[in-house]
C-alpha cells in the first residue's frame, strides 16, 4: 500500500521538528529513512503510525486519508527501536496480542501466530518470556508481532541498532527476505548507511526535519545532491577539499592541484570558491590528475588498505587501495584522482 506524506509538519510546543515534508513510498517498496540523530526520523514514523498527532499536512495510505484515524485503526506494524515487547507475556502471547485484541477466534490466532513464528524462525522459543531471549531473538519476536496482523504498512525504527555485527548482517537479509515475501510496504529508520543501502529499494536522506534527497542507493551514491548526502553515504567517508575555479579548472592553489571540471558539471565563474568531494576509491595509483602529499595514516582492512594523505595546505584526503606494502607511514607520494568521478559543491553545499 502506498504511503504519502503530504506537506506533513510536526512541532512539539514551540519546537518545530518537521516542516512541510512530502514523501511518497510506493506500494511494496522498502524505503530507508536515513539521517543523523535528532533529525526527526522517529517523529516521522510515529506520525505515520498515529502515535503522534500531526501539526500540519495529511497522511495517506493508498487513497485513504489517515491523518485523523487513531493508531488502533491504521493497521500499521511497528518494530520499535527498543522492541517494546510485553515483558509479562510469553513470546507466543506477544505475537498473538494484535490478533487477540481483534478478537479473532482462538484457533485462528494460534494458527497465524505459529505461522509467523515459523517465518521468523522462533518456533522453539514460544514459551519463553522476552527477558529470557537474546537481543536477536527479541528482535525477531518484535518483527513477528508487527507482521502477524498482516499490516498495510511496516515501520522499523532502527531495529538492528542493538545487535552485534554478525547478527546484524543476518537480520538485515532476514528482514529484507520477509519484506519481499510478504510484499509489504515498509519504512526502515536507521542512521547506518550500510543498512540503508543494503536493505532498501530507495533511500530518503533527512537532515534537520527535511528530506534532502530520495533515490536508489546507487543513484544516491553516484549522484549526491548535496555535500551532506555525499558525506553521509560511503564508508570510509568522502573527503572534502576547498578549491577555487581558475581558468576553467578547479585549483587548490596552496597544494599545487589542478583538476578538470567533471563532465556534467557547470563550470563556475572564475574565482568562485568551491568544495570538492573526493571519494577514497577515486584516489589511487590510476587516474588523470596528480595529487601529492604525505601519508599520515595507514590502516589495513584485510583486502584493502586505507590511507590518509595530508596535502601541502594541511587538508586530508582518503584513499582506499588493494593491499600492498610499498607505501608506509610518512612517505611522500604522488597519486592520481579520477577527475570525472569527483563532486563539485558550492560553498553552501549544493551540487554544481
Amino acid at each position, binding site marked *: 500500500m502506498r504511503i504519502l506524506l503530504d506537506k506533513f509538519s510536526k512541532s512539539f510546543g514551540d519546537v518545530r521538528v518537521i516542516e512541510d515534508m512530502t514523501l511518497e513510498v510506493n506500494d511494496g517498496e522498502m524505503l530507508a529513512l536515513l539521517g543523523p540523530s535528532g533529525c526527526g526520523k522517529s517523529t516521522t514514523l*510515529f506520525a505515520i*503510525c*498515529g*502515535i503522534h498527532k500531526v501539526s500540519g499536512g495529511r497522511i495517506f495510505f493508498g487513497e485513504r486519508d489517515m491523518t485523523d484515524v*487513531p*493508531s*488502533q*485503526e*491504521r493497521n*500499521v*506494524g*511497528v518494530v*520499535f*527501536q*527498543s522492541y*517494546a*515487547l*510485553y515483558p*509479562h*507475556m510469553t513470546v507466543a502471547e506477544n505475537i498473538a*496480542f*494484535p490478533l487477540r*485484541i*481483534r478478537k479473532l477466534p482462538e484457533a485462528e490466532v494460534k494458527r497465524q501466530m505459529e505461522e509467523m513464528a515459523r517465518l521468523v524462525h522462533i518456533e522453539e522459543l514460544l514459551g*519463553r*518470556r522476552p*527477558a*529470557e531471549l*537474546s537481543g536477536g*531473538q527479541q528482535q525477531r519476536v518484535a518483527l513477528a*508481532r508487527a507482521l502477524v*496482523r498482516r499490516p498495510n504498512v511496516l515501520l522499523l525504527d532502527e531495529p538492528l541498532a542493538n545487535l552485534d555485527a554478525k547478527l546484524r548482517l543476518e537480520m538485515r537479509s532476514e528482514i529484507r527476505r520477509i519484506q519481499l515475501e510478504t510484499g509489504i510496504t515498509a519504512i526502515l529508520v536507521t542512521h547506518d548507511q550500510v543498512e540503508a543501502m543494503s536493505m532498501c529499494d530507495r533511500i530518503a536522506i533527512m537532515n534537520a526535519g527535511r528530506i534532502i534527497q530520495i533515490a536508489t542507493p546507487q543513484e544516491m551514491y553516484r549522484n549526491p545532491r548535496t555535500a551532506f548526502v555525499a558525506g553521509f553515504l560511503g564508508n570510509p567517508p568522502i573527503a572534502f577539499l576547498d578549491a577555487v575555479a581558475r581558468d576553467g579548472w578547479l585549483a587548490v592553489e596552496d597544494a599545487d592541484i589542478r583538476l578538470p571540471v567533471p563532465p556534467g558539471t557547470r563550470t563556475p565563474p572564475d574565482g568562485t570558491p568551491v568544495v570538492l568531494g573526493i571519494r577514497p576509491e577515486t584516489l589511487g595509483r590510476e587516474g588523470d590528475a596528480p595529487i601529492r602529499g604525505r601519508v599520515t595514516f595507514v590502516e589495513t582492512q584485510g583486502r584493502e588498505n586505507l590511507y590518509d594523505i595530508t596535502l601541502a595546505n594541511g587538508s586530508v584526503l582518503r584513499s582506499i587501495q588493494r593491499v600492498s606494502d610499498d607505501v608506509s607511514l610518512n612517505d611522500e607520494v604522488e597519486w592520481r584522482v579520477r577527475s570525472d568521478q569527483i563532486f563539485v559543491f558550492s560553498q553552501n553545499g549544493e551540487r554544481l
Partner: protein
Amino acid sequence: MTASRDIARDGPAPVTARAVSARGLASWLNSSKGLGLVLLAPAMVLVVLFFLVPVVVTGLIAFTNMSTATGITGGAYQVSPSALRVLTDQHGMGALAERLGQPTYTVDEQGLATLEEMGIEPGIVAGLRERHLGETYSSRREFERAIRALPERPATRTVKRISAAFSRSLANERFASAGALIAAAEAVEPDLDAAEKQALVEATYTGWTWTSENFRRLATSRDTERVFFNTLFFVATTLVLFNTGYAMVLAIATHYIPERAAGIFRIIWFLPRISPVVIYVLLWKWLAWDTGFLSALLSNFGVRPRNWMLDSATNAWVFVILINGFVGASMGMVIFASAIKAIPQSLFHAAAVDGAYRWQQIRHIILPHLKWPILFVTCYQTLSLLTSIDQTLLSTDGGPGGATEIWSLWIYHTALNNYAGNLQYGYGAAMALVLVVIGITLSLLYLRLFNYNALIIKPRIEH
C-alpha cells in the same frame, strides 16, 4: 579469651598478647558478620524494647484475669457472695458455700465479754457460760430457743441482742493471707478436707490469677463472632473499595491526564493522609452532625436534620469506610502511580499500534504490571486496617450500639475504656494476642507469596 591467653604464653612478652587480642577484635569487626552484628545492635535493642517486650507482656497478661477489680498487684481473700457462687458453681461445693455463707452461732468467751459490755444481766451471761460454752449452732432459731430456755427467761428483745453478739459469719470478711482464711473457716466448719481448703482459697482470692479463661470466653462469646465479622467486613470493604480499588482508579486516571494536573490531583488525595487525624475526623463529623453541612443542605429539601453518621448502622459503616478509605487510598495511589510511570512508554505505543484501545491497554499492560504493587498494598493495608483504631474511635466509637465495633476498638473498650468501669486487662490482652497472632500469620502468608514468586522466575537462558 582462651585463645589470646594461649598466644600470650607462647609469645615472647605480654605486650604482644595485648596487641594480638586488639588485632583479633579489629579483624572480628572487619569481618562482615562482626560488623553487621555491631551495626544491628541498636536496632535489635529497639526491636526488643518496643516490640518484643510489649508483645510478650501482652501475651502474659492474656493468661490472667487482671481487671480493675483484681488490680495488677496481689489481692486478699474475701468470702464474698460471688466467691461463694464460684465455690458452688465451679467446685461443686454448694453445701460448704451455704454453710460458710450462713451465720453460725458459737458461744465463746469473746461473745460473753461483749454481752457484759452491752450490760446484759450477769445472771444470763453466767447461765450461758455454764450451760452452753463451746457449743455451736448453725441456725439462729435453734440458738435462740436455747437462750430462751435459760432459767432467766430473757425477753425476746434481749434474746435477739444476745444471738447477734454470738453470730460468727465469714460472709464478706477479708483476710490478708490464706492461713487466716482457713483458720477462720475451720472455726465455722472444723472438718475441712484439703480439697475444700484449696477450693476455698482459690474462690475467695480477690487478686489476679493465671487462667486460660479469657480464651474460652473469647471462643464462646457471641460478641466475638459479631466483632469478628464487623472487622472482616471493615477490612475487606475498605481494602477492596479504597486502598486498592479507588487507589488504582486514581493512579490510572492520573496516568492519562497531563502531568501538572495529575500532580495537583494527587496532592489533593494526599491531604487526608497528612492532616492530623483529629482535625480530619472533626471535619467529617461537622459534615454529618445534625447541625452540620449535610443536614443544613438537605433541610432545604425538607429532610429532617439528624446525625447522619450515627443515624443508622448502614450510615455509620458508610462513614467509617469513607473516613478510613480516603486516608488509605493515597498510599496505594502513589505506589500504583509510580509503578505505572515505570512502565516504558513504548509499551503503550506498541499496544496502541497493535490495536489496543485505552481500556484494553489498562487491562493488558497496566494491570499485569501492577501485580506486585497490588499484592504489596494489599498486604500492608490489611495489616494496618486490622490494627487501625484512631479514625473509627474518633468518628463512631463503635456506634451506634456496637454496629461498627471492630476488633481493635473492642480491645480498647474492654481493656482501657468502658462505661461499666471495670477494665478487663486480661481479657483485652487476650483479644490483642489473637490480633497479633492473626497479623503474624497473615504476614508470613504474604511473605511466602512474595518469596514463592521470586523463586519461580526462571533463569535467563541464552542459545
